[in-house]
C-alpha cells in the first residue's frame, strides 16, 4: 500500500521550463529565473548498502550560501522536480528574486534520482541535502524548511530531532501537511484499523510536531479533498507547541492554494513569516 503514498515518475534528465508534462502550478513569465541562478547539484546517500546520487536544483548563488538565508523545499509525493519546478521559481522570488536561496531535490525513485522511495531514504536524502548546504557554509539560524504534502514528513522529522541532522531549521513552513500514515489508512478504509495493517510507513507528523519548538507557518486550502484541513493540517497545527501561524485559503485545493491565494500574496505571506 506504500505505493498509494509514493507516486514517483522517472526522468532521464530535467527540462525545467522546457518540460511539457503536467506541473504543480502554471506560472507566468513574471516569475522566470535566469539560467545563471539555476544550479544542478548532487549528493550521495547510502541506501541498503547501495550508493544513490540524489539530484537537486539550487536556485540562487551557491558561492554566497555562507551568508544567505536558504529555503530547503521538500516536495510532495508526485512525479519529480520538473513537476514542482514552478513552485521553486515562486520561492526564488520571495522578497524579490534571489533574496533567498532555494534548494529542492528528488527523493529516490523520483525524476533522475535512481532507486525506490522509502520513508528511510526520504529522510536520508533530506539529511544529504542538509549536509550539502552545511558544507557550503549554511548555518542553522539561516535555514528555513518548507514541506508540501508528503514533504511535510521530512520537515517534521528534521525539526523534531534537534541536533540529529547536520542543520536544524530556524523556522518551518508546512503546506497541506498530512497528519499520519495511519490517518490516511483510516480515512481510506473507514474502519479504525492500525496503520501497520497496510503500510510500512511510520510517518506521524501529528506526533512529531509536538517536539518542534521553532515557529511554524501552516498553509492549507480549505477545499483540499486529498489531505483535508480537519483530518490532517488542523491536527498538526493543534499539536504544535509555541509560535505558530496559519493561513487557510477558501477555495484552495491540494495543489491550487498558491494560485487561489494569488501567487504574489502567497510568497509575500511566506516571506513575511521568514523575515519576522
Amino acid at each position, binding site marked *: *500500500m506504500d*505505493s*498509494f*503514498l509514493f*507516486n514517483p515518475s522517472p526522468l532521464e534528465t530535467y527540462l525545467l521550463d522546457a518540460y511539457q508534462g503536467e506541473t504543480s502550478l502554471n506560472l507566468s513569465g513574471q516569475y522566470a529565473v535566469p539560467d545563471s541562478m539555476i544550479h544542478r547539484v548532487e549528493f550521495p546517500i547510502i541506501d541498503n548498502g547501495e550508493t544513490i546520487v540524489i539530484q537537486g536544483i539550487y536556485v540562487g548563488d551557491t558561492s554566497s550560501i555562507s551568508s544567505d538565508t536558504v529555503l530547503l523545499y521538500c516536495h510532495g509525493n508526485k512525479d519529480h522536480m520538473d513537476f514542482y519546478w514552478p513552485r521553486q521559481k515562486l520561492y526564488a522570488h520571495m522578497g524579490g528574486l534571489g533574496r533567498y536561496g532555494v534548494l529542492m531535490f528528488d527523493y529516490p525513485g523520483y525524476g533522475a534520482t535512481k532507486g525506490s522511495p522509502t520513508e528511510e531514504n526520504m529522510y536520508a536524502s533530506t539529511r544529504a541535502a542538509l549536509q550539502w548546504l552545511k558544507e557550503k557554509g549554511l548555518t542553522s539560524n539561516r535555514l528555513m524548511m518548507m514541506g508540501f504534502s508528503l514533504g511535510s514528513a521530512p520537515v517534521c522529522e528534521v525539526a523534531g530531532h534537534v541536533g540529529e541532522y547536520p542543520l536544524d531549521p530556524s523556522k518551518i513552513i508546512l503546506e497541506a501537511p498530512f*497528519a*499520519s500514515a*495511519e*490517518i*490516511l*489508512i*483510516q*480515512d*481510506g*478504509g*473507514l*474502519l*479504525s*484499523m*492500525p*496503520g*501497520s*495493517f*497496510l503500510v510500512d510507513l511510520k510517518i506521524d507528523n*501529528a*506526533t512529531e510536531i509536538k517536539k518542534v519548538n521553532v515557529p511554524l507557518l501552516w498553509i492549507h486550502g480549505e477545499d483540499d*479533498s*486529498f*489531505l*483535508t484541513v480537519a*483530518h490532517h493540517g488542523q*491536527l498538526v497545527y493543534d499539536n504544535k507547541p509555541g509560535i505558530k501561524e496559519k493561513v487557510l485559503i477558501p477555495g484552495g485545493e491540494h495543489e491550487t492554494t498558491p494560485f487561489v491565494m494569488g501567487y504574489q500574496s502567497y510568497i509575500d505571506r511566506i516571506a513575511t513569516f521568514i523575515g519576522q
Partner: protein
Amino acid sequence: MLIFSFGCAPTRYVKPLERGEHSVNAHFGGPVSKVPGMGTIPLPFSSIGYGYGLSEDLTVTGNIYATSLLFGVGQVDVSACYQPWKKDRMGITLSPALNILVDFYTGANRLWPQLDANYYFDYSIYRSRAVEGRNPKRINTVYAGISNWFDPYLTESQGRKNEQFWIPSLQFGHQWERRHWDYQLEMKILAPIYSNENIVVDYPSLLGNYGALGAYLGVHYKF
C-alpha cells in the same frame, strides 16, 4: 492490503449446505480502486475457507485471508449461515460473523463483527441423472442482500472520534450450483452512505462521490 476491509470478500454461503455436507471454498476480488502504476482494478484480495452443514438450515464456516498474510497480517473470520425462512425456490439467510485481525509484527489487533442478510431465488433447476446420496440438480440462483460491518472502537488515530460505527454494503450476485462445484459472481456497492472524496485512495463508484464498487469471484467444492 486491507483497505476497505469490509469489502474484501463476497457472501460466503448464499444458502446453507446440506446436513453433514463439507465444503472448501476460495474467493477472489475486492474494491475496485485506481492503483498507481496499475490502473483501475479490483484490489486482489483472496481467501480460502471451510464450511460444514450442521443442519439443513445452519452452516458454520471459517475463512483465512491469503493476501493479508503476505503483508504480515493474519485475518480470519468465523461465521454461520442460518436460514430462518424458505419457501419453494426462495429463501432468506442470515450470516453473523466475527472478523479477527492481528499484525504479526506489531501485535496490533482488531475484532469487527459482521451481519449479512441475503434473499435468494433459484430461477432455474435442472434435474439430471440421480446420483445416490448426492444432489442431482443443477441450480442457478440469483441473490441480493446487505452486508453490515460494525466498528466498535470509539477512537481512531490521534484521538479522533470514530464516526463510522456501522458500515453497510449492498450485494448482488449469481451462483451456479452443481453436484460438487459451485461458482459465484458477486458485485458490491460498498459503503454507499459514506463519501469517497476525502480519502487518499481513489475508488470509482456507481454512486459518484459515495461508496465504492466491489467485484468478486468464488468457487466452492462440496463433498
